């Protein structure tokens, strides 16, 4: 395995051009969280002509609904949730300037095509490693939709958050390639 690449959002098209499927990434800086209910609210808001609760241009959304923090910790367990449930909303957010998504599991053909069109990458974090991943999160602050509890939008400060590129801006898919390699 090669050395991981380091990324700090906001990302630009140059950052994304260099990424290819299978690249291991360490992200430091800001990630925004959002999953099912927050995505629905954000897209409903756009449909009504409203503005998103944060400036999404160049940003990365992490699909996570963390468990509550113990006293003294910034966050509880915080691994990725399954991404396909966000497929209906993701192209709309890419139109607004979203450059990265972190989750786990396969994306639809439409989302992969939208990633090519709008230049956005999809990365996977290790699903079910919520305790381990929580160690990379130094600060967490709810910035919108507090009533959604675990589904609220949070601004995370992360250090060396590990992810792997699953879909790049050229329409490649690591899940397809990976399984093909080991299929018998």
């Amino acid at each position, binding site marked *: *395995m090669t050395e991981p690449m380091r990324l700090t959002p906001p990302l630009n098209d140059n950052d994304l051009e260099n990424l290819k499927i299978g690249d291991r990434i360490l992200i430091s800086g800001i990630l925004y969280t959002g999953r099912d209910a927050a995505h629905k609210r954000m897209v409903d808001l756009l449909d009504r002509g409203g503005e998103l609760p944060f400036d999404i241009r160049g940003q990365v959304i992490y699909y996570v*609904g963390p468990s509550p923090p113990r006293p003294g910790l910034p966050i509880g367990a915080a*691994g990725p949730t399954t991404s396909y449930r966000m497929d209906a909303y993701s192209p709309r957010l890419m139109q607004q300037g979203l450059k990265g998504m972190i989750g786990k599991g*396969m994306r639809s053909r439409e989302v992969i095509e939208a990633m090519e069109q709008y230049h956005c990458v999809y990365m996977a974090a290790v699903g079910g490693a*919520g305790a381990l991943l929580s160690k990379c999160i130094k600060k967490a602050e709810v910035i919108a939709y507090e009533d959604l509890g675990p589904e609220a939008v949070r601004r995370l400060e992360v250090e060396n958050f590990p992810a792997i590129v699953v879909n790049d801006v050229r329409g490649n898919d690591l*899940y397809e390639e990976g*399984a093909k*390699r080991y299929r018998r």
Partner: protein
Amino acid sequence: MREINVQEVAERVKDLCIAANLELGADVLKAFDRAIAQEESPVARDILEQLKENARIAREERIPICQDTGLAVVFVELGQEVRLLGGDLNEAIHKGVRQGYQEGYLRKSACHPFSRMNTGDNTPAIIHLEMVPGEQMKLIVAPKGGGSENMSRVEMLTPSVGIEGIKDYVVERVRASGSNPCPPTIVGVGIGGTFEQAALIAKKALLRPVGSRNPDSELAVMEDDLLDRINQLGIGPQGLGGRTTSLAVHINLMPCHIASLPLAVNIQCHVHRHKEVTL
């Protein structure tokens, strides 16, 4: 007649909710080690090592293994010689879940199907009550995450498809689930019964220790065969490619209607949580 106060049940359910979400079973950890020894993919080996490290952090630092601490599935085997005192058993179980998820810093993941409004305390618990002979009471808490449950299915097969048809369906279900249910998975299979019974025995099949042999020799061979075929799919840990797509296949079987062949596939992620106590 033995008397058990339901408030004791609430206490035990609370403790089981917390323990299940923080302490991964030794059977799963051993299965990770076996997989690491056999795995061909370096990426897959690295992921499996991370899962071991994750389990260690969870246990030692009291952080849930996974942020999805599940709906609380509670199996109750109630001895028919037991007399319950102190109130409503179901209410006591819900209370135990409510307290466990609050005091254990566990995520509340229950919501209304339409409004998606969170119930706020992870109730209602999903309770399966079974009467058994004797004067003991067994409680099993098995928190179930949404990602793997979403990949599960019940299918009413045509009897003519036979054993091969059953096997093909199970393998295809795992293939189509791909990376979504957080592989490596444990695959619970329920064959027979009725529509709802097939699902229930598939879920119960998951409770058998990973790595244990099915006592029915025909089913044991079928489990081995299914696991081989599944691990030839190449999906691997987290779907990134490898030999370890599933750690085990567990089958439960019972008679069914002469017209039917119910089949349930209940997929369980590697965060395979269940803790039990006998009162």
